[in-house]
């Protein structure tokens, strides 16, 4: 006997069954993960950016004696003393948590040889001052001779305010980085998108040969850390470079190096997006153009470009975002040319100025968020261009054009394969440029700073853990968002959380993790400095693309499955296990290889989070290059490359096997 409530009807709010509660529980757990691993750290970072430090002069009092050491003059408040000068000796500007302020400037007659004595105290228990390195607090009077009084410095107090941002925007050295970053990202975007467009065009619209090889070469940069091209460029165009004369006296350390390297590492990303855009163009439009006797040139501008425009915009914003948030490449080859991502590193690691690091992070968030938002809009419109009646475009042979395209793709492929080849060459040369004999000496990582072979093992562990845990978390999350009924608001919120990581640059995420997890009051403090925090940060950093892949795969599955299984009173996990997962296997494999490769190459988020025991191969590349051990850095970079290439081959084999099986299943074997 079935009651009316058991019949699924779209407009009646169904009663929540056991399954629904379990599903919501899962969604809540994964949402909680995203909140703890993303939202709360970002909040901690923002609050740090608004912590400011100033010297509260009114908290200190001084009394000066006469030449005989008698304290006959009145007690003076330091703030009043300062106000008597025009302009004040001690400016009202802000400082950082390490700030120190001397006081002798307030006494124009001060001489450290003078017999004058000083009495000094803070008026509140919070007032902190140092005599040399000795720390003093509170309202006890301290009597000091002139020679000791010159060693007195006061310490700042903490407030909440915008002062860090004021300081930031009034420091030309720092704001110059904003211009530098925007400039570099714009130039690299224009060059990469142009190169990638013609490359994708050659693959999609010509009948040249070896397309498969070219496509594979174009994908190679994904397998290496973004700082590897920097190392290759040093060997090619550095002061001892093989092709130094090509630069005609310009230095590779600076904008030229960053742009060249950026073009290399962003090329595959732009190429994939534009290829997709070109692939969905409608052949009927070209037929119409031919029958209207439009020239090839005109057809190109009126049909091809408008058809691919969203893809081009999307590629441009993705490349822009990648370049402006990249840290490894400008660190290796930036020279004196400062960019935002490197500034964060310098403020935090170099100056221990965490507040200013957080401020630069907020500044970097603005263009990254904007580029991300625009890209999302473009991709939505792109999909809408597809219609069911579209006819797939088939290129026709054209000898002359095919030859030109072939020559062009060969040139670009030489650039890409050449960069990687140079790194392998560099790794095998004993001591460039003075001893060119071949040796494996540079693979003795244990003799260098950076973590040695242990860091390579750690990277493998991180990549495997990230791939396994990440895939489970991401796929479950996507399933709950896509296939559950009701709970619209919760699902929308979850979807928003899942999109957020892509807009957060890795450096910013890493810094936010320091603020959040390195806080002793945080119950999760214990994961700080362990492999767990590296896995969590990497899964979170690459969450969005994986989530979108999973959602797309799940959207392709008919919702009938859920309805049928529900009406057969089957629990959802049975359907999930027996149907959803096997059918989505290709997507699941894609997510895991994506996570694996990125975990091997990522530098930006983990550079703030690794510890001695969890040094990573990508960080070792950075640190060895940093210490001037460039050849071993190249050698480690190539280890990452071969590992990723091997993983990709395994992935291709596994996908083929699974596709065969699922194909068989679809045929109903």
């Amino acid at each position, binding site marked *: 006997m079935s009651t009316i409530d058991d019949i699924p009807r779209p407009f009646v709010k169904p009663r929540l069954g056991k399954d629904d509660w379990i599903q919501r529980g899962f969604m809540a757990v994964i949402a909680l993960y995203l909140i703890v691993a993303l939202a709360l750290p970002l909040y901690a970072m923002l609050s740090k950016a608004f912590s400011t430090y100033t010297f509260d002069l009114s908290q200190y009092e001084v009394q000066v004696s006469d030449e005989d050491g008698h304290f006959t003059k009145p007690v003076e408040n330091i703030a009043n003393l300062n106000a008597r000068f025009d302009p004040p000796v001690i400016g009202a500007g802000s400082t950082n948590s390490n700030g120190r302020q001397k006081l002798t400037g307030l006494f124009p007659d001060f001489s450290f040889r003078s017999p004058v004595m000083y009495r000094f105290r803070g008026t509140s228990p919070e007032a902190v001052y140092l005599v040399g*390195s000795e720390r003093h607090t509170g309202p006890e009077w301290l009597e000091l001779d002139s020679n000791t009084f010159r060693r007195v410095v006061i310490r700042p107090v903490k407030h909440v305010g915008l002062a860090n941002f004021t300081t930031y925007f009034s420091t030309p050295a720092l704001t110059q*980085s904003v211009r530098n970053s925007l400039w570099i990202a714009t130039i690299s975007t224009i060059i990469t998108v142009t190169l990638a467009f013609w490359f994708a065009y050659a693959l999609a619209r010509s009948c040249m040969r070896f397309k498969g090889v070219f496509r594979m070469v174009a994908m190679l940069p994904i397998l290496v850390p973004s700082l590897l091209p920097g190392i290759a460029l040093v060997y090619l165009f550095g002061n001892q470079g093989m092709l130094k004369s090509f630069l005609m006296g*310009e230095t590779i350390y600076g904008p030229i190096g960053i742009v060249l390297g950026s073009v290399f590492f962003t090329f595959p990303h732009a190429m994939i997006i534009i290829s997709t855009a070109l692939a969905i163009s409608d052949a009927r439009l070209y037929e119409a153009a031919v029958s209207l006797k439009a020239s090839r040139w005109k057809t190109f501008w009126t049909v091809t470009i408008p058809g691919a425009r969203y893809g081009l915009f999307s590629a441009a914003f993705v490349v822009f975002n990648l370049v402006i948030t990249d840290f490894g490449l400008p660190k290796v080859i930036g020279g004196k*040319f400062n960019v935002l991502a490197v500034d964060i590193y310098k403020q935090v690691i170099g100056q221990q100025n965490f507040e200013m690091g957080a401020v630069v992070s907020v500044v970097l968030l603005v263009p990254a968020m904007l580029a991300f938002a625009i890209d999302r809009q473009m991709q939505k419109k792109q999909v809408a261009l597809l219609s069911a009646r579209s006819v797939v475009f088939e290129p026709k042979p054209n000898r002359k054009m095919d030859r030109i395209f072939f020559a062009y793709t060969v040139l670009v492929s030489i650039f890409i394969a050449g960069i990687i080849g140079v790194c392998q060459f560099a790794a095998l040369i004993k001591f460039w440029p003075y001893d060119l004999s071949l040796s494996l000496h540079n693979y003795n990582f244990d003799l260098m700073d950076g973590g040695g072979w242990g860091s390579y093992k750690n990277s493998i562990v991180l990549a495997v853990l990230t791939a396994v845990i990440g895939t489970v978390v991401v796929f479950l999350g996507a399933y709950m968002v896509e296939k559950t009924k009701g709970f619209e608001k919760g699902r929308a919120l979850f979807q928003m959380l899942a999109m957020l990581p892509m807009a957060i640059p890795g450096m910013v995420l890493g810094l936010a993790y320091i603020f959040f997890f390195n806080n002793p009051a945080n119950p999760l403090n214990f994961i700080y400095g362990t492999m767990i925090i590296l896995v969590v940060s990497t899964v979170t950093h690459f969450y969005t693309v994986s989530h979108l892949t999973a959602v797309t795969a799940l959207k392709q599955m008919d919702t009938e499955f859920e309805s049928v299984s529900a009406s057969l009173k089957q629990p959802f996990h049975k359907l999930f296990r027996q149907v959803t997962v096997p059918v989505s296997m290709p997507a699941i494999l894609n997510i895991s290889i994506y996570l694996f490769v990125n975990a091997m190459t990522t530098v930006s988020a983990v550079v703030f989070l690794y510890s*001695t025991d969890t040094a990573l191969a990508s960080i070792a590349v950075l640190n060895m290059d940093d210490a001037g051990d460039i050849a071993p850095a190249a050698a480690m970079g190539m280890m990452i490359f071969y590992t990723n290439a091997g993983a990709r081959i395994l992935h291709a084999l596994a996908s083929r096997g699974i596709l065969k099986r699922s194909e068989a299943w679809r045929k109903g074997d």
Partner: protein
Amino acid sequence: MLNLKSFALASVLAIGATATAMAAELTVYTAVEAEDLKRYADAFNADHPDITINWVRDSTGVITAKLLAEKDNPQADVIWGLAATSLLLMKSEDMLEPYAPAGVEKLDPKFVDNSTPPTWTGMDAWVAAVCYNTVEGEKNGVPAPTSWKDLTKPVYKGHVIMPNPNSSGTGFLDVSSWLQMFGEEGGWEYMDALHENISRYTHSGSAPCKLAASGETTVGVSFAFRGAKSKAAGAPIEIIVPTEGVGWDMEATAIVAGTDDLEAAKTLVDWTVTKKANELYNSGYAVVAYPGVAKPVKFFPEGLVDAMIDNDFEFAANNRSAILAEWAKRYDGKSDPK
């Protein structure tokens, strides 16, 4: 059955008893080279097998930042091998336990904190020096410099690399030594002139010398020990001690205030000032705190110890923040996009 049970109980008790006897475990923060840590721990454990050292190692900047971040909830028991300027920052935050290690009076007083009792003791010094590539020097017509002032001559334009003091301890000790030697004003004037000749600033202190060794630059401002290592590896370089004197910093040891096991911490720190410990330091550093221990290191430049300036660590620590800000304002990002 009963017998078995009591046997098991007895062994548990026995293990418990042994565990109490060797309960001492110390968390030690360090910036010492990773390859040296095991030797240090092994040598210490040869004398004190009952104390286990758990190392936490990173670069000077990172360890300093970590210690400052944990100010209110210290995780370390002992700091063994961190720049004295960093330890002075800790001292000014009241993070160090004042303690005079047994035998501290035998050390060169330059290597001991001037408070009584001292809050830290030095281990060894790392000293600035200039690495000069003779092959590239001849090729580019760049003569070997003999003094810091030489490096501001026009002939060196574009041939000098030095570490960025904001990220490198070596870079900071150079800058602080120039400010001490040439005076505040003279120091900045010197750096203004030097900046004209610098081709770039590196993040690490050893990089300039390694880059000089590989011919990427002709002159690299770095530290002497790095130069000696590169020269031993066959690089065509000379290690030059500028005539005005050279800056230095020392690696030092201290007990972190609030440690759970003050006795074990004291035992460790007592050991770190022994002659035996100093002999260990000597394998990595040419200048150590214990007089008469240091044996010459191969290719180490002559006259280096005499050239070490009378370093005012307090000046360096208390002005660090202001100096770095001023440096960044003047030289960081001065280059414009072309």
